[in-house]
């Protein structure tokens, strides 16, 4: 099968789609996480941190972890070792990203402005 075929038909196998989606979400999350860390630790401008979108961020991180988990589960049936490694790496990294986000939210609890 030609490598161009999935791009021409716009159809990928399920495990590849899920893993790639989780990796894309992970890259966005790590960008936001690095920016948060920078504003928290170095520049100390807490108004620039991602406090207004905490709900969306947590939802999206859980979604990303779930996609990575599904991708890893679907990939266990295949014989493609590269894909398996990729999917498991995505799963572990997503978990690490969620853990880091959780710790950061806990640390910055006193700097949040809550309006009820």
């Amino acid at each position, binding site marked *: 099968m030609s490598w161009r075929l999935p791009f021409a038909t716009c159809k990928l*196998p399920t495990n590849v789609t899920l893993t790639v989606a989780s990796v894309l979400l992970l890259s966005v999350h790590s960008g936001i996480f690095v920016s948060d860390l920078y504003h928290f630790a170095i520049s100390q401008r807490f108004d620039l941190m991602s406090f207004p979108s905490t709900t*969306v*961020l947590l*939802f999206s991180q859980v979604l990303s972890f779930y996609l990575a988990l599904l991708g890893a589960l679907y990939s266990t049936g295949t014989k493609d070792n590269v894909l398996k490694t990729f999917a498991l790496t995505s799963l572990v990294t997503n978990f690490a990203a969620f853990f880091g986000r959780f710790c950061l939210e806990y640390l910055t609890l006193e700097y949040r402005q809550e309006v009820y």
Partner: protein
Amino acid sequence: MLRGPFILWGFNPFRSEQKLVQCLQDNVHFPFEVQQPKVFVVEYYRDTLWKGALLLLLSAVGCGLYFQTEKGDQDYAGFFAFGILTGLWLVLCSASKRRLVINHRRGFYRLYIRERLWHQGPLHQIYVRLTAQQDAYGKSFYSLVVSGYRLEELVLARLSTDYEQQMQALGRRLAHKLYLNYFDCQEASGRHVVRHWPPPLLHDNKACPQDADQTDRHEAEGLPV
């Protein structure tokens, strides 16, 4: 009543097996058409097309409305971005027409997406299957699907409760008409009908015909098959 490539879009939450019975009365090979004797063809669009389009539309409208209203403490615009991206992906994936050909003369099935060959496989890898799902009270719901290796599921009737009278009989009848393997919802069952067996696993390559590709090539080159 939907026709043509939209024939599988009819969504009937109640008594979907009755609708399948009606369709089978019109066309015994439903949803396939007989192109030549022993060659069955179905052209279809996936039903994620309208679902994705609906999601895209709802997200776009919701996004527009959200930016009109006054914002609170939390910013929820990300949800609409998710909706729009997911809808776009679903529409992009399922916008192209699929064609599934079951060829009993050559002994293979082929799935074309946008007139490009996506997968070709031997007939023991495509099947008619009854799937069971249970709700919280232990009641079973049965769906009838045509599926296979690297194929998309074609759902013919979904979530019906009538197993004994309708579903298994319909499945067996359809599998008989299409001459495909039929699998029941239970793993070990006397109702499985296996018409195509996989080739025996031997180390000898000659005894294990790879797929019809080689046969085709040999035919095209005029070599003995």
